[in-house]
């Protein structure tokens, strides 16, 4: 499994789980022992109970947040790659697009939320959430793919010139494969950012047709239903972890034959 120390295969999973279990037990014990009120810090058992009791509403909220995250991610992916490919074809496009992309990136999404909300109309909050999450997720894809498309080996580029490759062939057979590891790294960041964007946007802009997880957290806080707030938080971080694992899996799958980051070394 590991490079230098030959760990038993299951250890990677068992050790963190064990640590988590110990921490949970400590938490539970402390809450009992110090009699911490449940609206300050609920015991893990109470959170589990809330997760079970409110499963119906929470799963709907989870789905709503997930949908916005996925849509934002896909739109960011398509637009980011398309713009990167475009700017790789012409320097003029690149220098005209990039300042605005940077502007979009450095402006805090919280600050533009009200504006977007007014533009799309208060009856289309869903769209505002989608736009905001997309803005957040978009930049890593664009900048990473742009860098990747430019990182082509000079000799390989010459080779393509020598054999009379067209612009399309160069893009498909040389630039895109070169950019793939960069794109995947960007996607890994973007996946997490899309979720963050979806949550932050809901905090700022409110919820649309149905309440997402962020709204559930606000609502639970207002009602001092702290166990449910924790339950929503747990679902949120679980979603984040799943997205990360999926991206990492995709990265390994696509790069395992050739890229230094993904090949397993044999010694």
């Amino acid at each position, binding site marked *: 499994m590991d490079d230098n120390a030959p760990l038993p295969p299951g250890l990677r999973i068992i050790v963190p789980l064990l640590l988590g279990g110990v921490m949970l037990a400590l938490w539970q014990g402390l809450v009992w022992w110090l009699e911490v009120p449940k609206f300050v810090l609920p015991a893990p058992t109470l959170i589990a109970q809330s997760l079970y009791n409110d499963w119906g509403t929470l799963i709907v909220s989870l789905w709503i947040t997930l949908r916005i995250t996925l849509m934002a991610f896909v739109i960011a992916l398509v637009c980011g790659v398309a713009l990167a490919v475009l700017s790789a074809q012409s320097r003029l496009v690149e220098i005209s697009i990039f300042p605005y992309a940077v502007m979009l990136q450095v402006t805090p999404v919280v600050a533009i939320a009200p504006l977007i909300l007014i533009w799309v109309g208060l009856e289309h909050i869903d769209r505002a959430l989608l736009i905001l999450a997309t803005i957040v997720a978009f930049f890593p894809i664009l900048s990473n793919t742009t860098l990747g498309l430019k990182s082509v*080996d000079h*000799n*390989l580029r*010459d*080779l*393509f*010139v*020598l*054999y*009379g*490759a067209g612009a399309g*062939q160069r893009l498909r*057979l*040389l630039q895109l*494969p070169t950019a*793939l590891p960069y794109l995947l790294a960007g996607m890994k960041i973007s996946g997490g950012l899309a979720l963050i964007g979806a949550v932050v946007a809901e905090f700022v802009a409110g919820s649309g047709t149905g309440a997402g997880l962020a709204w559930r957290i606000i609502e639970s806080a207002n009602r001092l239903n702290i166990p449910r707030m924790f339950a929503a938080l747990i679902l949120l971080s679980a979603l984040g972890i799943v997205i990360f694992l999926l991206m990492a899996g995709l990265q390994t799958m696509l790069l395992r*034959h*050739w*890229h230094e980051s993904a*090949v397993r070394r044999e010694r």
Partner: protein
Amino acid sequence: MDAAEAPTQMPTRPLIDICGVAKTYSGGTHALQGIDLAVRQGEFLSLLGPSGCGKSTLLRLIAGLGEPSAGRIEWPSATYDAAGRPERSLGFVFQEPTLMPWATVFDNVFLPLRLAGQRRRAVALRVEEAIAQVGLGGFARAYPRQLSGGMRMRVSIARALVMHPKVLLMDEPFAALDEITRMRLNDDLLRLWQAGHWTVIFVTHSVYESAFLSSRIAVMGARPGRIAELIEVPAPYPRDEAFRTSAEYNEYCRRTSAALRATLPDAGALP
């Protein structure tokens, strides 16, 4: 042995005619100046010189990668395409293997054909043949990173050969390899060259390599890059281990070495 005879008599029309070529880079470096060279059909020509004398620059100009600042490079016997460029059939082997790491050996060798619009199915045999030619039969499915440095170089050569080029340009292809691998590849290269009847222009900074391989050596000097001397090596091919240890080979090495030393500014100071 026609390969041995051919270079010794001057054919009426050279394959490549290089006239008064100079190259000045935008930084102001005079990489080449006043290069006159007629490359003969079927010869094995080495460009030998110290680092920075413009060997790579000259080879790239011959390949059409970049324009000379002055002078002309002509292909008298080549046909010209619609855009006025000579239709040269050439293969280029870089100093590094320069393989696509995401593609298998097969796909790397297939690349030139693919860029020429060929279908994989139609040319699979030809690709396999080129891979076998460089002694890598059975490795078609492997990825470059699974191969040793010498094997990668062989893939690079197979890729250059798969188009059946008339001219093979090689830029210090074996410089990074160990002595034994290099000798093996040298032997293989000579064998392929004799069988294929093509012309090789081979850049090297090794006196011994150039004397072993070449039918002619262009010794180059630096600052500005120029051709100082042309040395004929009329020893017959095939050249083998016996040639490598012969007095004749030694004599060529000595002469080449002397010519190379004469190009250096403080000729006497060096051992």
